[in-house]
């Protein structure tokens, strides 16, 4: 789809590199994978490399909100990314004006920390399972908390999917703005790690790559006076299936891009994460690409449902800081679909 004069007005990121887009971008600029921590639960056959989000540098203005007292790490990552994308002035304005901010959140595993804890309690004795934990296990708890902190009553939607789901979610945000349902859209992709999701990921990796956690957020607004990155195109997602293996799906989305040709001015932000089976798909489909290229998941780990969001954040940041004029986000998701998008400025 073409997105008119809607721009990316802000971005936010929380990764193993730290809290904020700058920390994320600095790690990407080095091009080196962050040092992972091998984790192994007693009795399991091998350790799995993980890249966890470090403790925040201090407290945030929003962190005392009553809704966040028991919130999971995922909610905190999402909230931090959302707050960064919006910025303090916009957040203050949101609370004082009738501005309708739609919120869309994507994830793959969701609130696994509380889900695992709660189910552990259920298996021990369901009559003693904590009523405080259960509501936090619901997929949309995180988006609900973010909306509550931002005092938004506009539509809020949680979409569960693999890393590529972030791009269709961006499109949903654009649709909401184009049909007048909201004045702006905040699209957040996030994920948290615990032993459940780490071991699950380990079943599909080959021992060298790292699984990560965090969140990425993109704020869409109608274009203001100052130039900002725009979304030129988001392809229709190609769902994997018996007749559409991941490589074919990514080939299809590349061919659906209006300008998918190699160009030294265009940055390719791909979904390579260090898992050879998955990286081979991106390598094959973009074999002729000779322009600049970023692979965020190779640096901060495969952040599952957050990975597509972090690709989009990286692309917007590189454009916004004048490092390139155009960027392609190529996302071959872990298990569902492939999608691509093109961002530009000017």
């Amino acid at each position, binding site marked *: 789809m073409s997105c008119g004069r809607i721009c990316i007005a802000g971005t936010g990121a929380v990764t193993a590199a730290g809290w904020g887009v700058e920390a994320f971008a600095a790690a990407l600029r080095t091009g080196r994978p962050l040092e992972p921590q091998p984790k192994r639960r007693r009795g399991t056959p091998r350790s799995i490399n993980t890249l966890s989000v470090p403790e925040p540098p201090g407290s945030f203005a929003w962190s005392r909100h009553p809704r966040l007292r028991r919130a999971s790490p995922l909610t905190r990552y999402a909230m931090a990314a959302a707050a960064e994308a919006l910025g303090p002035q916009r957040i203050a304005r949101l609370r004082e004006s009738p501005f309708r901010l739609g919120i869309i959140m994507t994830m793959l595993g969701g609130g696994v920390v509380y889900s695992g804890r709660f189910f552990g309690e259920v298996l021990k004795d*369901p009559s003693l399972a904590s009523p405080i934990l259960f509501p936090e296990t619901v997929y*949309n708890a995180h988006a609900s908390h973010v909306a509550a902190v931002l005092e938004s009553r506009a539509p809020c939607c949680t979409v569960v999917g693999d890393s590529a789901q972030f791009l269709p979610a961006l499109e949903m945000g654009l649709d909401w703005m184009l049909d007048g349902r909201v004045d702006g859209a905040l699209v957040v992709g996030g994920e948290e790690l615990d032993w*459940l999701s780490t071991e699950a990921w380990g079943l599909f990796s080959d021992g060298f790559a790292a699984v990560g956690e965090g969140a990425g957020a993109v704020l869409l607004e109608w274009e203001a006076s100052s130039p900002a990155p725009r979304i030129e195109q988001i392809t229709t997602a190609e769902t994997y299936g018996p007749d559409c293996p991941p490589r074919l799906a990514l080939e299809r989305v590349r061919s659906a891009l209006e300008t998918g040709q190699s160009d030294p001015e265009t940055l390719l932000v791909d979904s390579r994460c260090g898992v050879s089976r998955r990286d081979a798909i991106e390598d094959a489909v973009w074999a002729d690409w000779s322009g600049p290229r970023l692979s965020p998941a190779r640096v901060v780990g495969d952040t599952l449902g957050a990975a597509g969001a972090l690709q989009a954040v990286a692309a917007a940041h590189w454009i916004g800081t004048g490092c390139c004029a155009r960027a392609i986000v190529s996302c071959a998701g872990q298990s569902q679909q492939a999608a691509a998008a093109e961002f530009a400025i000017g």
Partner: protein
Amino acid sequence: MTGAGIVTSLGLGWDCNETGFRDGRVALREIRGFDVARQRAKTGGEVDLPDARFWLGRLELRRQARLDRATTLLLIAGAEAWEQAGWGEAERSAAVPVILGSSAGAMNRGEDYYKQAVAQPGNRLGQATRVENYQAHAQGRALADLLGIRGPVTMVSNACSSGADAIGLAANLVRAGAVETVLCGGYDALCQLVFAGFDSLQALSPTQPRPFDVSRDGLALGEGAGVLLLESLERARRREAVILGLVQGYGAALDRHHLTQPHPQGDAALEAMEAACRQAGVGPDDIDYINAHGTGTPLNDAAEARAIVRWAGPRAAQIAVSSTKASIGHLLGAAGAVEAIVGLMSLRGQWLPPATVVRVPDPLCEFDLVREPRRARIRRVLTNSFGFGGANASLVLGRFEERP
């Protein structure tokens, strides 16, 4: 809407569900799928799945053998909807989007994964398959593969409004002209984690769910699926399809009052109803029946009753309202989709589904609470779906009458 498929504890398919809802039959029993001995509540709307998997033709045998309960419910409803719509090769060759809502997806598979990981940490046998099938989009993909369609799969998880949101988002895609056809709906299966979760909140009725009754004491959980095939009116007419009804409006609003409790005055519920009616271009005078969210919990029903009365004003007394959760329990992510299909049945059959278990209506119910089976003239139905996290959604469904 040109195709509809439904599975609830009343049975598999349109016919037995239509009879059950029309008569206000209650299909709740003690849970058999997992141990509820130590739970406060013990009943739910459990589906008897058939042994014969006649609907599975296009799925590989390997995948058939691995189907979890939630996916099975979804596939049965999806196959019925497909057959009713008469869709075939034209839809298979086009990219039909699939938009589904679910609250817990294949949580049963997640539970199995967890149990094995804890009991036998080194045993990876079957764990990868459990992880694959647990992921929500695996269920959407299974349905697409069963029907042989290829299009983007979107899995909405807005708790108990997921099914209604999926239908609303799908209808908006058709309305905007982005697609001509879309498959949508919702599904959820009973599982131990969610049952224990609602029980821990003391939201489950230890007796029987009695939505809008003055002595109501909680909800019953249920399971099932509702799938709708939507297409543009022009396309449906072009292919001379049987048009079951119209999705005329969708509205959503967020209640940020509390993670699990509605605003006492039903502010966001009111907003969702108003938004749905605004899109449909109708007002309270045009709505004849509301299929309420009506879980049967004291707080939810009170907030919804207030919202309906605020929305309808003096017209409230003329609007028939009932909650079919009295019959089948609360289907969570499937609720909005199944209840939209109940609304569709009402529109087509011109009857109102009663909640026969209600003895003394809450005085807040200043509307026509349907407690006995009856026939009525119904032009439009409003369905309400409100969920944890403050997700509120309403749909306006209209009767299709071809003008000469």
